[in-house]
Every structure is written in structure tokens, then in C-alpha cells.
């Protein structure tokens, strides 16, 4: 663990102890240096005093060359255990007497050196001139002392110093342990709080404030921040709960609506299926008696024509025409039932193309009829102008076949695109029977809608024989009659209504039916 990662307590203690130790060390070093220097001075002064005394006492021995006296004098140095050697040299520098007596020749200098005291090779040595008072030099005294006394004192001082330092460091450590708390405690408390917030996401905890210093201000700011966060979090939670409740309510509501829609759809489907089955069955059962009516009328016409007058034959023709007309109606009902049974789907189709197909089909079926097609856009236009139409799951052109079947009897069919500008809708236009299909594309291009007009033909001339008409529709009270299956008009229109489309019957300008 690097120093940077140490806990703050240890860091503070270490800093305090290191500083204390350094101060003590420097102080002790200065003190030891001074003591060493002063001890050396004292030792040299003491040796020089002793040298002068012995030199003064040995003048007589040297002056009278009394060697025994001189040796005795030097032997008195035994009292000082630190004096390791002493030599008296005569006037010419020869050794006159030495201490201790058995000192080796190489342990002491053979000739006296320059006068004075100095430290040399771990010893203090000195050459003291031996002179008679104020005149003649008689010889030289050499003294050598070891420095054990100095070292002993120094050693003692070091031991004392180390002991003091140890005690002082211990005291510094203990004190720093106590005192660092004033700084580290608030920081640690802050850190603890921050940790609790981040791990438990608990914004209700607060850091304890331990003083009014900068750390106290920091703690206050931190606590305020926590308070604000807590408030915001509470508010957010309230909002979230509210939102969740609302979503749940809405979901429940939607589910209920869905369920009800599903029920309705199922009921509708069942009703529709029943109706279809009914229509299918009825249509089939109706055809059999019709065939009999028509067949036996023909039998009468063929076998008993002679017994019948013109009116009787006309009546039989009418019976046949009516039954055939009814057959057509039943066929149309069957077709419708078949279309209704097919599955519904919505998709984009090319209405213009379909209109063209239907128109050409009608033209082919009845070449004598006048088919007028206006404003049928070309193929390049078709993609852009597609409109959604609804129909059974068949190829698109077939889905308008119902339409085509329904209007097949009409003299003219017009399916054209029309600009929906309210100002252009004159009274004449409004009187027309029209089928309007508005689909997806119409919503995309609001100015466009499709209109299909079915116009009936004029009333048949009175002089035309009735049996030439293959089928007639009942007079609805208008001035015009149309052929084709009117019974299917409303189902077909309903087919075109539904989501995304609309279909409205209008009036025929020639005075057609009023829906």
C-alpha cells in the first residue's frame, strides 16, 4: 500500500511522529557535536597542565643527568590510567627516560617532534619543552593519552539521548493519536456517511458535525445536499407511484375495453355466420320451387298453347320472367354471402387500375352499351394515387367485382377521381347516386377522393313487349328505373364503409332513386 492510500489516521500520526523524530534527531546531533568538541578541548587542556607540571619537576633530573630520578618522576603517571606513554628526551633529542619502563621503541617517537598538543591516530599527544626558568632548554617531554575518557562520556550521552528520544517519540505518537482525531474524525464521519449513501441508497442519513471549523462547514454543506437529494427522490418516487397507478388503471381500462370489443366481435361474427348460413340455405331452397314454376309455365306454354288466349300466354310469360328475375336475385344474394364469408383485410390497391378493369369488363359484356370513363389516371400515376379499399381476401380486382355485379345492370358506370372542393359541388352533382371511397391515400392526399356514379336507364318504352325484359326491378317511385340488383346496393355500400372508407348514396341527375 503506497503512502497515498494510507488511512487518514495513520497518515496524520506518521506525519506527527516523523516531524517530532526529526526535530529530536537534529537537536541531539547538535548537542552531541558540541559535547565532543568541548570534551576534546578539556582533555587537551588537562594534558597540557599535567605536562607543564612534570616538565617543571624534571628540570633538575635533566640538568644533573639523574636518570633514576627522572624515571621515578614519570612512574608517578601511573595514577592516570589514560596516559599510555611518556618520554623525556635530553638536550640533543635522545631518549632520557620513558614510561612505562618497558615501552617498545617503536611505540614512542625516537626524536621529539614540534612543541604543542595535538590529536593523532586516535590519541592525544604533546611535546612539552623542559626549560630552566627563563633561560636554557634542557630537553623535551612527550606525553600520549588515549581518548577513552572522551568516548566514554560520548557513549553515555548517546545512550541517554536515544532513551530520551525513544520516550519523546512514544509520547509524540500517543499525543498524535489523540490529537489527530480532531481533524480525522469529521472527515471519517463524512466518508462513512457518503459510503452509506452510495451503498444503501439511503439519503436519510446525516454526517455528524464535530466543530465550527472548515470541516464543520463542509459537513453542513454535505448534509444540505443530502437533504435536497432526499426531497427530490421522494418527489420522484411519488410521481413514479402516481404514474404507475395511472398506467395500471389505464391498462385495466384498456383490457376491459379490449375484452368487450372481443366479445362484441365474436358476437358479431357468430351473428354474421348464422346470417350467411341462413342466406345460403334459403337461397338454395328457394331455387327449387322457382325452377318448378318456370319449368311448368313453359310446359303449359308448350303443351297447352292452343287452349290459351293471348292474355293467358302473356301471363305465363310474366310468371316465367318473374321467376327468372327472382333466380337472378337469389344468385346475387349467394354471391354476397360468399363475399361476406371471406376474410377481410386492408391494403393499398390501385383503384384507378381496378376501375379501368371493371369498365373494360363491362364494355366487353355489353358492347352495345355506352361506357364513359373520365379522368382515369395512367399507370405512372397509379402508384402515387393508390387508395385503400376493403374487400375479401382475393386478388384486388375481384374485390370490386361485387361492386361491378351490383351495378352491372346499370347503363353507365363512371368511376373517376374527383377533386374535393366544396365550392364545386353543384346541385346537379349532389343529386347523383354516388359511391365514394375514401381510403388511406385520400388521407395522405386530402384533395383527392374517388367517386363512382351509377346511372340508371330511362323507363322502358310502353310499346316494348314485357317479356323481352329479362328482369325488372319494382318501381321505387322515382322517374327512372334501373336494372341490376338493387337488393345488393345497401350491403355493397356497407362493405365500402367501415374504417377508413365511406360510401354515400346520392341522387341520379336523371331523377333516379332517393335512398
Amino acid at each position: 500500500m503506497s503512502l497515498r492510500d494510507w488511512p487518514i489516521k495513520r497518515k496524520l500520526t506518521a506525519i506527527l511522529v516523523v516531524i517530532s523524530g526529526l526535530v529530536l534527531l537534529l537537536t541531539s546531533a547538535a548537542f552531541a557535536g558540541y559535547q565532543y568538541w568541548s570534551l576534546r578541548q578539556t582533555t587537551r587542556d588537562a594534558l597540557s597542565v599535567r605536562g607543564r607540571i612534570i616538565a617543571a619537576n624534571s628540570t633538575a633530573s635533566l640538568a644533573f643527568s639523574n636518570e633514576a630520578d627522572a624515571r621515578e618522576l614519570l612512574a608517578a603517571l601511573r595514577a592516570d590510567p589514560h596516559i599510555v606513554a611518556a618520554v623525556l628526551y635530553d638536550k640533543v633529542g635522545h631518549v632520557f627516560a620513558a614510561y612505562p619502563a618497558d615501552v617498545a621503541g617503536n611505540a614512542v617517537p625516537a626524536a621529539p617532534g614540534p612543541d604543542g598538543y595535538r590529536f593523532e591516530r586516535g590519541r592525544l599527544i604533546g611535546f612539552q619543552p623542559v626549560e630552566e626558568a627563563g633561560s636554557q632548554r634542557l630537553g623535551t617531554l612527550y606525553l600520549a593519552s588515549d581518548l577513552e575518557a572522551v568516548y566514554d562520556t560520548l557513549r553515555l550521552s548517546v545512550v541517554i539521548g536515544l532513551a530520551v528520544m525513544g520516550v519523546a517519540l512514544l509520547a509524540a505518537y500517543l499525543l498524535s493519536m489523540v490529537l489527530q482525531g480532531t481533524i480525522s474524525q469529521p472527515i471519517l464521519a463524512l466518508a462513512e456517511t457518503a459510503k452509506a449513501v452510495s451503498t444503501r441508497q439511503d439519503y436519510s442519513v446525516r454526517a455528524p458535525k464535530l466543530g465550527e471549523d472548515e470541516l464543520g462547514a463542509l459537513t453542513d454543506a454535505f448534509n444540505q445536499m443530502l437533504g435536497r437529494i432526499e426531497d427530490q427522490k421522494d418527489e420522484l418516487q411519488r410521481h413514479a407511484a402516481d404514474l404507475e397507478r395511472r398506467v395500471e388503471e389505464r391498462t385495466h381500462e384498456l383490457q376491459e375495453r379490449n375484452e368487450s370489443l372481443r366479445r362484441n366481435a365474436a358476437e358479431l361474427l357468430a351473428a354474421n355466420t348464422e346470417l350467411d348460413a341462413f342466406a345460403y340455405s334459403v337461397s338454395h331452397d328457394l331455387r327449387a320451387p322457382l325452377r318448378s314454376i318456370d319449368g311448368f309455365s313453359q310446359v303449359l306454354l308448350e303443351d297447352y298453347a292452343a287452349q290459351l288466349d293471348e292474355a293467358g300466354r302473356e301471363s305465363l310469360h310474366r310468371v316465367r320472367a318473374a321467376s327468372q328475375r327472382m333466380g337472378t336475385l337469389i344468385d346475387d344474394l349467394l354471391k354476397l354471402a360468399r363475399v361476406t364469408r371471406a376474410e377481410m383485410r386492408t391494403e393499398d390497391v390501385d383503384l384507378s387500375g381496378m376501375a379501368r378493369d371493371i369498365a373494360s369488363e363491362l364494355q366487353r359484356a355489353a358492347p352495345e352499351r355506352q361506357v364513359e370513363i373520365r379522368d382515369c389516371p395512367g399507370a405512372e400515376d397509379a402508384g402515387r394515387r393508390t387508395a385503400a379499399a376493403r374487400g375479401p381476401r382475393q386478388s384486388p380486382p375481384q374485390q370490386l367485382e361485387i361492386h361491378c355485379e351490383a351495378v352491372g345492370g346499370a347503363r353507365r358506370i363512371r368511376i373517376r377521381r374527383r377533386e374535393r372542393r366544396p365550392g364545386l359541388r353543384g346541385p346537379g352533382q349532389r343529386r347523383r347516386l354516388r359511391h365514394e371511397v375514401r381510403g388511406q391515400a385520400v388521407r395522405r392526399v386530402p384533395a383527392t377522393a374517388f367517386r363512382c356514379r351509377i346511372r340508371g336507364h330511362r323507363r322502358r318504352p310502353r310499346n316494348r313487349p314485357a317479356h323481352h325484359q329479362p328482369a325488372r326491378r319494382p318501381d321505387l317511385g322515382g322517374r327512372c328505373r334501373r336494372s341490376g340488383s338493387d337488393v345488393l346496393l345497401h350491403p355493397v355500400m356497407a362493405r365500402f364503409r367501415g374504417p377508413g372508407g365511406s360510401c354515400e348514396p346520392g341522387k341520379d341527375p336523371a331523377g333516379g332513386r332517393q335512398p
Partner: protein
Amino acid sequence: MNPGKILLVEDNPDDVALTLRALKSHNITNDVVVAEDGAQALDYLFGTAGKSPAEKELPAVVLLDLKLPKVNGMEVLQRIRASEGTRLLPVVILTSSDEERDVIEGYSLGANSYVRKPVDFVEFTQAAKQLGLYWLLMNRAPPVPRRP
């Protein structure tokens, strides 16, 4: 005229009368055996409950209605195709229905032809005439299978 018989399976007496008349008016004088329901048709073809079967001479063509009491037309057709003796017998479905599902089912059960009865009697006699001409004159009947 081909001596082959026609088996007409039809429950509606009016339709029977009209069909017979239509055939007669076009000089199709072959014997017409009328079965009023599916069970009678099967009795005639296979012979059950003591009645002598018409095995010796199968009809040249069967005109089969679909909506029949007791045994319906589809079932009759199924039985005809299932039996070894009548497997190849020409069967023309002659019915009021032109429902796609009926057409598909009829053909998949092996009908040779499917004709819808028109309401218009003139058209109906035309259809009967053409059926008679085709199946009795033009069509070559399948060989009568040898009985074990």
C-alpha cells in the same frame, strides 16, 4: 339409341318430372331409373335387403343431386367410387348449388362432371339434352368390370 339406362337420383318430384320431360323432348328415350333418395340409389346399385341388385346392367350415367334425404349425394358418390364394381361409373352431379366447396368436394370425390340446374326451364332442357347426348352417345362408357 344407346340402350344404356340413366339413373336419376333426385328427391324433388317436380325436378324429376321436368328432367324426364326435358330428356323426352330431345328424343332421349333411354330408360330412366329414378331414385328418390340416396338410400334408394345405393339399393339400386348394390342391392340390399332382399331386392335384386341391378348388377347385371349398370346405368350408362348417374345424374346425382346433392341435397338428398337419408343418404346425401356426396356419400352416395363416395360409396360408388369405393366399390370395385362401380368405381368407373360416370357420375354427373346435377344440383342447385354452385358453392365452391361443393364443386371442389364433388370433384375430389371423383365426380365426372358438375352441372348446376338453371332456373330457366329453356336452359334446363338444353342442359339435359346436352348431358344426354354427351354421356349416352359421345362418351365411350368404361368397360363393365368382371365380377369375381
